[in-house]
Each structure stands twice: as C-alpha cells, then as structure tokens.
C-alpha cells in the first residue's frame, strides 16, 4: 500500500461525498466544452463575418469558467469541513501538514481529471445533438458535426489550470489547528449567528441609495457609471446576506418566545434552526443568489426575445423606407418601380410619399404639416399659421423643442410633441412640423421619402431579401431601411442570447441543487445520530418526518420566495420600461421553476428521510 492508494480509496469508498461535486464539475465543463465547440466551429467564420456571435459564445464560456471557479472553491470548502475529523485521524497516525495537503490536493486532481475526461466524453456524444439545436437557433445550415480539437484542448488546458489553482490555493487554507479540535469537529457546536443589525441596515440603505441614484441618473453616477453598477451589485449582495442572516436570527428569537414553542415538535424544529442557524442562513443565501441568477437569466433574456417586434418597429417604423438624398443621381424611379412591382406580387400594402427639407449641418429636418399627415402611422394634426409641432428623430431620445427659434421663419409657437420617431431612427435629430406656407419659403436640400407598410410583415423576410438585394443603401445617394430585415437580424441575436441564458440558468440551477445536496450530505451523519437518540425516548417516525419536512422546506422555499420577491420588486421598479408580456412570461417562468422545486423538494425529502430512518 502506498500513499496514492489511500487517495484513491478515499474517493472510491466515499462516493456519496464526492459524487455531487464530481457531477456538477462535469456539468460545468460540459457546457463550456459545448459552447466552445460552437465558437470554434469551422463554419463559424463564414456564418459570422463580424465575429460578434463567436465573441458572444466565447464570452459565455468565459462566464461559465469564472462561475466554475467560484463553485469549485465552495465545493472544496464543503469537503474540507466534512473531512475535518478524518484529517485529525491522519495527523495522529503521523501525517504531516504537508502530507495532508498533498493528499487533499491529489484527491482533487483525481476528481478533476475524471470530471474533465467524462465531460469531454459526454460532450462527444451529445455534441451532434447540441449542434443540431444550435443549427436551429443560429439558423446555420452548415453546422455539422466535426472533431473539435481546439475546443478539446482549450477545455483540458483551462480546466486543468482551474483545478490546479483552486486545489493548490485551498490546500494552503487548511489551517494548522490543534489536532484535538479536528478530532472533536463533529461534536463541537457551530458558531451562532452574530447579531449585526447595523450592518444590515447600513447595507440596505446603501443599496437603496445606489439604486435610486442610478434610476434618477444623479450627477455623480454619470461620472462613474460602471463603478456605480458594480458598487450596487456588491452592496446588494451584502444587503441580501445580512437581511437573511439577521432575519433568521429574528425569526428564531420570535419563535422561541411564543408559547407554542414548547408544543409538539416546534421546539425540535426551532432549536435545530438555532443550532445550525449560521450554516442554514449561508445555504439560504447561496441558493437565493443562484436562483436570482436563474430568474434574471431566463426572464430578462426571454423577455428581450419577446419584445423584439415592438422594439424593431420603434426603430424602423416601416416595412421599407427608401430615402432619396438631394444629390441622388441614380434612377429613383427605377428603384421605386422595382420595389412597388415586387410588393404588388406579394399582396396588399400601403405606400406613403413625402418630402422634408433639412439643415444638414445640425441634422434638423423641417416637414410640412400636409406631408406629415400623409404618413399613416400616427394621428393627423392641424396647425394654425403661427404654430409648430415637434417630432423625435431618434428612438428613445427626447427631441429639443426650441431649436427652431434660431431660424428666420418668423415667430412660431410650440404646439405639441410626438416623442416617437416617425421615420427610421437617426435619419435626423429632430423634425419640426411647420405650416405648409412656411415650408415653401425654406431653402434647404430636399429629402424624398417613399415608405411602404405590409400586412403581417414579420414573415415576409423573403420579400425583404429580394428587394434589399436589388436596392440597398448607397451612401450619398439613397438610404434603405427595412424593419423586416432588422427584425430578422434582431431575432437572430436575441435567440442566441436566450439560448445562452437558458444554458447559464441550467448551470445556476444545477449548482443550487448540488449545494443543497452537499449540505444535507454533510450533516446527515450527525442528524442520524441525533434522531436515533430522540426516537429512543419516544419520537414517532411521523413526528420526525414533520420536523425534517419543515427544515427542508425552509431550506428550499425560503430562497425561492426571496429570489421571487426580489425579481418582482425589480420588475415593479422598471415597470415603465417593460411591456405587459413580461409579467406573463415571468409568471410562467416562476411557475415552471416552482414546479421543478416542488418536485425536487419531495425527491430530496424522501431520500433524506429514508437515509435518516434506516
């Protein structure tokens, strides 16, 4: 028997401890591998000439990598805690700190190696399936299976590095404690929650302050934009942490004062919570943060996917908008005839012809009121001879309403504002709608606009492709904008985002479940002993089940509730920026997750009870 034999046996004979660590590592590596397989696909270069798609995939992989770091560090902590007593036994038999560290390090590297190999092997099996899904999502017909050598190498190198760093770092953290403490680690009491009401209040106030100043766009925020977002994120994490730990403490105290404390199984449940308050609160915190990650990933990304149509329409109001510039020498009529004849073949459409004059230096457009009313997307207006009306030129930017007074058009009075851009965004900074008579006196270059609107435009991408292949933007001549084309491109990006978000939320979810599993696994032995003792003094299995159910429900559903509440609160704050579809989607998403949680709760509860009673 040699040293490595001990290492191997430690793992092989204690599978239940290592299995969830192993599986979650495999899962993280697998997703990383699949993402990089897509990113390094030989057809990627052709599909994605601007390489934004590849970048996004790589960014997502990078994020998974960072997350794996944190997650693996956490798992290792959980391990070491469980192994404390064993480490003490090793030390009394004469193992030095160096040997202990070596042992833990080798155990880890062994698991790491196994996890990397397993992940790549599984990756090989499901990569074709994954690529098939990707093919659908990315609409890349050419995405077939290939031997992803670069991504295999990348995965192996990066994760070996990760495990090496984490294991080396963690084994340094094994404190040199008196052996007697190590040996008694399983019976000594955990640290209790330290009351810290000021920290809780402070972190909450800070978060609220940061949040309000970001929403209100206060001055100081503008100068430190990224810093303020990071600060908000960090203070938010602290606020959640302190609120949860202090809340647990408060709940325990309140429960203990109530008279029902001494009835039935209440005392057992509450004293359990108290004894393990700190680690329970930590688990609740971790699960809350991970669940928030899941919710944000799914709701926000899916909702952005959902709003594409409205957002596209806001940017480009027309199915096709042909803008002829003043210096246009090319044959406008030929282009227009082509567009209209193509559209004629498709079916019914509305056409709008108008013109406006523009101060090209300041990009301020002037439009006659009759031309404005010609456009069909908004309510017609009437202006008296000394009035003007203001219309936005850029989407989401409030136009300046007073610039018109710098022009010699006589005295005009402000009559109203349309905040939605009427033509494609960015064409002009602002449009001033003026009486026809005034318009005729202006001597600025004339832009001619031919706008077309189709019914059911979202599925007319073929029409758009036909027209755009023939008539596209020629700088200095004419401009071409199509919401159909934009919508198609946007939808493509959003579906990739959603796809990535979905994978990320899967990772968060698996991490959350794995953390819970770890935690229960770690405390199982002690709990078993405790309940065996209590059962001897007359404690039915039913009563035991009720205590365990309450405790497990606390651990699973409190994080869920908190995360859901935070999500809902966030939605309430940004309610002006989101559509009602978002609520529906969030409700559906939460429902699905709740369902998954309830199912896993019952599975975990059953398995845990079986182990406890047996």
């Amino acid at each position: 028997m040699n040293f490595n034999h001990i290492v191997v046996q430690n793992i092989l004979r204690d599978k239940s401890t290592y299995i969830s660590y192993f599986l979650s590592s495999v899962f993280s590596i697998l997703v990383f591998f699949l993402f990089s397989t897509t990113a390094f696909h030989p057809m990627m270069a052709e599909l994605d000439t601007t390489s934004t798609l590849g970048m996004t995939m790589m960014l997502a992989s990078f994020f998974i990598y960072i997350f794996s770091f944190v997650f693996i560090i956490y798992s290792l902590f959980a391990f070491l805690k469980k192994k404390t007593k064993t480490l003490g036994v090793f030390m009394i038999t004469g193992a030095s700190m160096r040997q202990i560290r070596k042992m833990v390090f080798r155990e880890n590297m062994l698991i790491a190696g196994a996890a990397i190999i397993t992940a790549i092997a599984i990756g090989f099996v499901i990569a074709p399936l994954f690529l098939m899904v990707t093919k659908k999502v990315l609409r890349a017909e050419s995405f077939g299976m290939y031997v992803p050598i670069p991504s295999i190498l990348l995965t192996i190198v990066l994760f070996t590095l990760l495990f090496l760093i984490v294991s080396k770092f963690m084994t340094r953290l094994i404190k040199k404690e008196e052996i007697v403490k190590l040996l008694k680690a399983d019976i000594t009491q955990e640290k209790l929650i330290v009351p810290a009401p000021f920290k809780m209040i402070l972190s909450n106030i800070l978060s609220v302050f940061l949040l309000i100043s970001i929403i209100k766009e206060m001055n100081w925020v503008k100068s430190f934009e990224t810093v303020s977002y990071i600060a908000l994120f960090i203070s938010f994490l602290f606020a959640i942490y302190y609120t949860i730990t202090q809340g647990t403490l408060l709940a325990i105290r309140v429960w203990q004062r109530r008279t029902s404390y001494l009835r039935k199984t209440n005392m057992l449940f509450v004293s359990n919570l108290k004894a393990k308050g700190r680690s329970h609160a930590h688990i609740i915190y971790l699960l809350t943060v991970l669940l928030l990650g899941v919710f944000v990933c799914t709701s926000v990304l899916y909702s952005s996917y959902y709003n594409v149509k409205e957002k596209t329409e806001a940017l480009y109001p027309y199915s096709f908008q042909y803008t002829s510039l003043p210096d246009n020498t090319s044959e406008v009529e030929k282009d227009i005839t082509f567009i209209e004849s193509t559209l004629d073949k498709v079916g019914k459409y509305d056409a709008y012809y108008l013109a406006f004059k523009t101060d090209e230096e300041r990009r301020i457009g002037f439009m006659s009121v009759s031309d404005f009313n010609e456009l069909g997307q908004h309510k017609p207006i009437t202006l008296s001879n000394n009035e003007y009306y203001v219309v936005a030129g850029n989407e989401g930017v409030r136009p300046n309403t007073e610039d018109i007074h710098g022009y010699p058009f006589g005295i005009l009075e402000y009559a109203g504002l349309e905040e939605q851009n009427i033509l494609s965004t960015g064409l002009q900074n602002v449009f001033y709608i003026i009486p026809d008579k005034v318009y005729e006196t202006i001597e600025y270059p004339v832009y001619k606009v031919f706008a077309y609107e189709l019914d059911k435009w979202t599925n007319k991408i073929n029409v758009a492709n036909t027209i755009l292949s023939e008539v596209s933007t020629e700088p200095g001549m004419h401009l071409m904008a199509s919401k159909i084309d934009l919508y198609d491109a946007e939808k493509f990006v959003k579906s990739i985002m959603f796809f990535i978000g979905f994978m990320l939320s899967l990772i968060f979810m698996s991490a959350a479940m794995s953390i819970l599993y770890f935690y229960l696994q770690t405390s199982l032995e002690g709990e078993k002993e405790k309940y065996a003792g209590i059962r001897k003094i007359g404690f039915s299995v039913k009563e035991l089940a009720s205590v365990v159910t309450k405790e497990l429900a606390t651990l699973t559903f409190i994080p869920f509730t908190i995360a859901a509440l935070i999500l809902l609160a966030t939605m309430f704050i940004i309610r002006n920026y989101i559509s009602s579809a978002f609520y529906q989607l969030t409700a559906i998403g939460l429902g699905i997750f709740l369902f998954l949680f309830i199912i896993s709760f019952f599975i975990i509860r059953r398995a845990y009870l079986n182990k406890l009673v047996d």
Partner: protein
Amino acid sequence: MTKTILNVKQLQKEYTGEITYKALKGIDFHLGKKEFVAVMGPSGSGKTTFLNCISTIDRPTNGSILIKSKNPYELNDDELAKFRRTELGFVFQDFNLVHTLTVEENILLPLTLDSVNEKEMNESLEKVVNFLGIREILKKRTFEISGGQKQRVAIARAVIHEPNLLLADEPTGNLDSKSVNSVMTLFESINKTFNTAILMVTHDAYVASFAHRVIFIKDGGLYNEIHRGKNKKQFYQEIMDTLTFLGGGQHEF
C-alpha cells in the same frame, strides 16, 4: 526505574474562552522506560487534557514535556509528524479509524505515510496481526467489525511501528467486559514483549489494576500515586479505596 522516557514538568493548560478555565495547574510527572502507568481521577479532573498534552495533540500553556529528552512542541510540523509516527502510538475510546480504508489499510497507514517498502510493511503487518489475532478481519471495512475488534485494529495501528510510548485514552470505555479483559491483557503483553511504555487514562479501577502504577489527578493537580505490589487484587482494592476517598468510585449500598 532506570531510564525515563517521559518527563513532565509544571504542566499547565488553560482554556481561554468566555470564561478562562484552568484544566491543569502544574503537574510534575515522569514515566520510566517499559513502565505501564494508569491515570485516574473524577470526571473533569483534567486527566484527558493531561494525556492530550503529552500526545502532542493539544498544546500546553506552560511547562515542559520531554519525550526521550526531546520537546515535541519545539519540532516543526514535518519533524513532529515524523516523531508521532515513530515514537508514539495512540489508542482512543472511540477508535478513530479512517472509515474509507479497510482494516489492513488502517493498520498500515503510519508505514504508508513513511513510504516504507512493501516487504518491510508485510513483515510488520504479519507480526502485529499474529500478535493481536485479527487475521480474519483484515479485508473488512471499519463499519463491518465489532467494537472490540475496532479497538484491536486501533491498537494494531498504534503499535505497528513499535513505538516507545503508547498513549491510551479510555481504551476500554466503549467495550463490553469480555473485550475489556482481552484488550487489557493485550496492553500487558505489548508492554512486556515490545518493551513499550504505556500511559493510559481510565476511570475503571479494574482496568487500572493492570498497570504498574496509578496516578490520581484531582482539580488539575496531582493528588496521589500508588504502586502495584505482587498482588493484583490488593492493588485493585487500594485503587478503589483511593477513588472512594477522592469522591466517586465505589458506590455505597
């Protein structure tokens, strides 16, 4: 008492916490080579703390401990580990076996940590296995054997490298009377055959009567010590008398 293996001077141990508690208030003690000494005393008297300090698993606050003229607390971590596995053997009340290893692997653990070659390992194993009579359970896991067997395995692990000093903390605390007898007989014969000095903490007068000498600790200080004469039964009676005097021990009917 020609040679001394363990020399303890003014050993003190304080536990600092919310209330500072003095577990040991200055104990002088020496243990001769080949000597077998039992430490007794009421609960909370500090006997286990005394043993833990000597075992190098709990650092004393004050005083000196010399094992074979070396102060283990002056050694660095590597040296201390080496010292533990060559000079000391440990037996605990709750066995402290590694549950992921088999019986055989548990016994070989100290040698493995020392990277002893396989031939030597097997020879040593052969020797202790014969001596302790645990051949049939070698391939079993720690949870498949009885308490008495577990303690035998722990003893085997403690003596496989033939230490000079065997330290035992309530080695019979978790055992039935039959196992107590066999474990104590084992201690006696280890003491005789391997010339191992033994320091054992116990609260059982019968177990203590196997020793050559019994020291009594009360409230963190040395209270009394008695030597065994020719007669074991008489020795047992003397121990009982001292315990009764200490308060505790024999019950009155």
